């Protein structure tokens, strides 16, 4: 259970603040409490629209323990539904599939349109009788979850209480308004299964302090002093003033259109709280969606995007491999911090006022959402 004094200590000025206590990384009841406040009650990343490219495509995703499915409906709109039949609570979609007609429950075959409307209740009034005057089915459509797509990421507010996405994330949307252009998924999605609490992945992503030690390859051309912190409402991260494009002779990825000259060499990496890690560059972008799987396990799902539909395949392979290498370099760190949380004397740690501002900003957001 939460220790309110410890959460208040998180919200102290950075030089005096403590990090979140160990329970927030290990304890099952704290995980459940956080899931409600930080995941179900906010705009959390569920997946990306590119996972359902065609009408009828459906992908089941259990998020924070809630069974959902992501679907592109017959009109091409992406929707998210609770993955449950309104009849007896059976799971409707058990594996990625293309729904050709209606969504049919495998139990008693109640059927739903891809817009969620209940369209058939076979034999519900007895054999061969498909309605029953004593049963009102007019409000038994699928339970749709609030969703919003930004930068191809499908964000969901499962409990329905968050302010509109554009308001909750107005600052980061404005910050990257220049990049508001079509994103083309490169088809090279990959995932990492990591033995850590999901928040550690956010914390590590937010800051550049670790780059010289953990990512010497990156640091070889983009040094620590080239980085700057980013903190804003509902997000935090870092930017670099030294981004170098991948090239192969004259080949390079086309740029996103209309960018200011600063983006010739700049790139930014922002965690959109709670669980979406975004990166953008002049010529490509990526999105990492974190799926918490209990207090000490996280799946990272990584998607890379380009400005044009057909990115140069050899370069895209190299780019994907390069980013995979970088993200894998972080695994020992986040797993090591997870193991460290078993030390009873660890009190949440301290923050470097100069270097850990974005991480502290995330901790403060967590504490605030938990009522501190």
């Amino acid at each position: 259970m939460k220790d309110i004094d410890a959460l208040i200590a998180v919200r102290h000025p950075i030089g005096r603040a403590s990090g979140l206590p160990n329970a927030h990384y290990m304890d099952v009841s704290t995980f459940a409490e956080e899931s409600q406040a930080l995941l179900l009650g906010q705009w959390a990343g569920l997946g990306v629209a590119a996972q359902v490219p065609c009408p009828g495509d459906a992908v089941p995703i259990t998020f924070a323990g809630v069974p959902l499915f992501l679907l592109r409906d017959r009109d091409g709109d992406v929707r998210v539904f609770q993955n449950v039949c309104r009849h007896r609570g059976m799971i409707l979609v058990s594996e990625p599939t293309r729904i050709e007609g209606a969504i049919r429950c495998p139990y008693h075959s109640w059927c739903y349109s891809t817009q969620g409307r209940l369209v058939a209740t076979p034999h519900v009034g007895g054999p061969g009788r498909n309605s029953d005057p004593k049963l009102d089915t007019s409000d038994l459509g699928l339970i749709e979850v609030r969703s919003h797509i930004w930068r191809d990421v499908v964000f969901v507010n499962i409990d329905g209480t968050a302010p509109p996405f554009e308001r909750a994330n107005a600052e980061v949307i404005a910050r990257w308004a220049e990049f508001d252009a079509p994103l083309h998924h490169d088809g090279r999605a990959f995932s990492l299964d990591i033995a850590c609490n999901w928040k550690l992945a956010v914390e590590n992503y937010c800051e550049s302090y670790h780059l010289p030690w953990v990512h010497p390859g990156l640091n070889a051309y983009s040094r620590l002093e080239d980085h700057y912190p980013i903190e804003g409402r509902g997000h935090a991260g870092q930017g670099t003033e030294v981004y170098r494009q991948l090239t192969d002779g004259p080949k390079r990825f086309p740029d996103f259109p209309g960018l200011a000259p600063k983006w010739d060499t700049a790139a930014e990496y922002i965690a959109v709280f709670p669980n979406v890690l975004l990166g953008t560059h002049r010529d490509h972008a990526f999105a990492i969606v974190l799926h918490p799987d209990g207090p000490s396990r996280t799946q990272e799902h990584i998607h890379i995007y380009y400005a044009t539909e057909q990115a140069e395949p050899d370069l895209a392979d190299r780019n994907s491999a390069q980013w995979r290498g970088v993200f894998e370099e972080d695994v020992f760190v986040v797993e090591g911090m997870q193991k460290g949380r078993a030390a009873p004397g660890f009190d949440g740690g301290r923050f470097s006022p100069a270097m850990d501002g974005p991480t502290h900003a995330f901790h403060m957001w967590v504490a605030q959402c938990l009522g501190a």
Partner: protein
Amino acid sequence: MPWGLNTAQTAEIEAGLLRAHAHGDTRTLVSLYTEAATEAPPDAAAFLLTQAWVYALSAGDPRAKTLSETLAAMGRA
């Protein structure tokens, strides 16, 4: 026979239904359930046409519309 067909016809359709169910062959299920309903008495026909209708719905098979209309005409919508 429960479906109004003779023994051989019924056996053939039942075997076909089992094969189609085993292979998830929805379009064949629509055809066979519809065929089985052809000579069936009203209650059995309504049951069989409902089966055909639901599989047609789930497959996006255009026969769903006709089947739905037939069931409605039978007072079984």
